[in-house]
């Protein structure tokens, strides 16, 4: 919209002096000058209206949000051992952080069956839901019990200082092919 305004305002301005140069007698109206003043007026008016609507639109996006923080800092990649499921954030944030050979991912601790919280059984290397027995592999893939789909993953990225940031606002579902999203998996 802004660009349109800029380019559109130029030609009439250039025309205006020519129109003024003509002597306009009493009620006689030069078509050219009539056209350029009028169009200038309309261009200005439409642009202003555009400004008004831009303001309206922008007004709907406040400069700060009052939403609870859904991200947390989960330490450094080195804090996590390859091949292990880290349960230290389970109670506080509802997240398991798992590191495998390629990288790190954050699994939601909500069972996809009825929303209970499964447990990590280190010896059997699986998540087992105590409610109805759904089982998930360490990747989050469901392989037994009634759970209809794999556990969800959360967005996981590195902060500027190299700390891991887990963002619970963004979920990735395997059955939707979202696990291939670069932010669903942190390569280290």
């Amino acid at each position: 919209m802004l660009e349109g305004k800029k380019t559109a305002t130029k030609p009439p301005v250039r025309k205006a002096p020519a129109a003024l140069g003509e002597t306009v007698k009493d009620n006689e109206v030069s078509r050219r000058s009539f056209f350029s003043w009028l169009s200038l007026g309309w261009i200005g008016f439409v642009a202003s209206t555009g400004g008004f609507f831009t303001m309206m639109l922008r007004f709907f996006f406040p400069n700060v949000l009052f939403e609870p923080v859904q991200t947390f800092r989960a330490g450094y990649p080195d804090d996590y051992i390859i091949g292990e499921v880290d349960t230290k954030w389970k109670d506080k944030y509802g997240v398991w952080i798992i590191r495998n050979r390629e990288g790190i991912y954050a699994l939601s601790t909500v069972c996809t069956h009825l929303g209970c919280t499964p447990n990590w059984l280190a010896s059997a290397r699986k998540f087992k839901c105590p409610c109805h027995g759904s089982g998930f592999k360490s990747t989050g893939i469901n392989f037994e019990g009634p759970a209809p789909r794999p556990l969800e993953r959360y967005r996981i990225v590195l902060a500027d200082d190299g700390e891991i940031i887990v963002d619970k606002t963004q979920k990735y579902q395997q059955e939707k092919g979202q696990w291939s999203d670069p932010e669903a998996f942190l390569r280290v």
Partner: protein
Amino acid sequence: MDSFKEIVNYISNPTILFTTVVLVFPFIFPPSDWFEKWHRRLGLHHLWGTKFIVIAMLGMVAFFMYGLGDYNFQKIVLKPDNVPISGLIFLVAFFTWLAMNQAYKNDERLNAGEKPNEYFEAPNDKVLVWPDLVYVELISLIIASAFLLVWSIGLPAPIEEPANPTESPNPAKAPWYFLGLQEMLVYFDPWMAGVVIPSLILVGLMAIPYIDRNPENSGFFSYNRRRLAISVFMFGWLVLWLMLIIVGTFLRGPNWNIFGPFEYWDIHKLEALTNINVSEIIYIKWLNKGLPDSIIIREIWGISILLGYFLILPPLLAKTFLKDMYARLGSVRYSVFIVLILIAITLPIKMYLRWMFNLKYIIAIPEYFFNF
């Protein structure tokens, strides 16, 4: 009686319900001479006779009364926000009948060379607004107000447990008038079902007067001379809109599974929902290799199918089946009309593809949230 319930439950399955309705529909609302012939031959025109509406209404009332004796039926039908939909079923049935009844009568008059019923009052033979119309309006207002007040006393507005953004009810449903769209979500991605289709519905509705240029039959009920227009409209309105709302409201239960009206909403019920994309069928099932890395190569088949559907089919139709229409509408109107119709038809097409081949997406580009 249980077997009756089981039969109802069984035919409530959208595959059966929808197929039946789609097959029967053109015979009830015949769009062409051929269907018209069978419509008469099968005696379906009696549907719009006075006797039928009495029977139909009594039948529907009887069904609801019977159904309300069933716990599961009662639970879903008497859910406060579902009550208007029950009302809607009766109202739509009645008014469809009323419109068609008058239309058929008018058609007969027109066929007999008479003017339509509404014409009896010659243009000069007008009535004054005071008091006839004003009075009728006042009485309507009183009745409507009384009706709403009775409704309000009889049925408390729902207030459920306090909002909890972390605990979603199962199933989580949109307001009932959007359930048709939510039902489409089963077959389309949200950008189609939630954005493109609703927009096209609105555009399509607005475009009706500009596409339907048939100057006849304005100002009175009629069917015969507008049967294609009415048939198409009826299909959209009754089948694609209202029926999907009813399915979404009454038949969709936990995990968005289908439940018959007399079926218990068992949260454990499972439906096999493993679906497959066109690219997977081609590359993995048929060619027995992995999916190509390049998105374009991977989805070239789906893209071709879609391009063929939207770019090749319309001119083809214009030359064959819809030759007359093309001539009547001209190219612009025809293009708009045919594209709208084709998009509307994608819904049943995708439904059947899903039911028959477990097909999920014709084009699947989740990388850019572009799935069709």
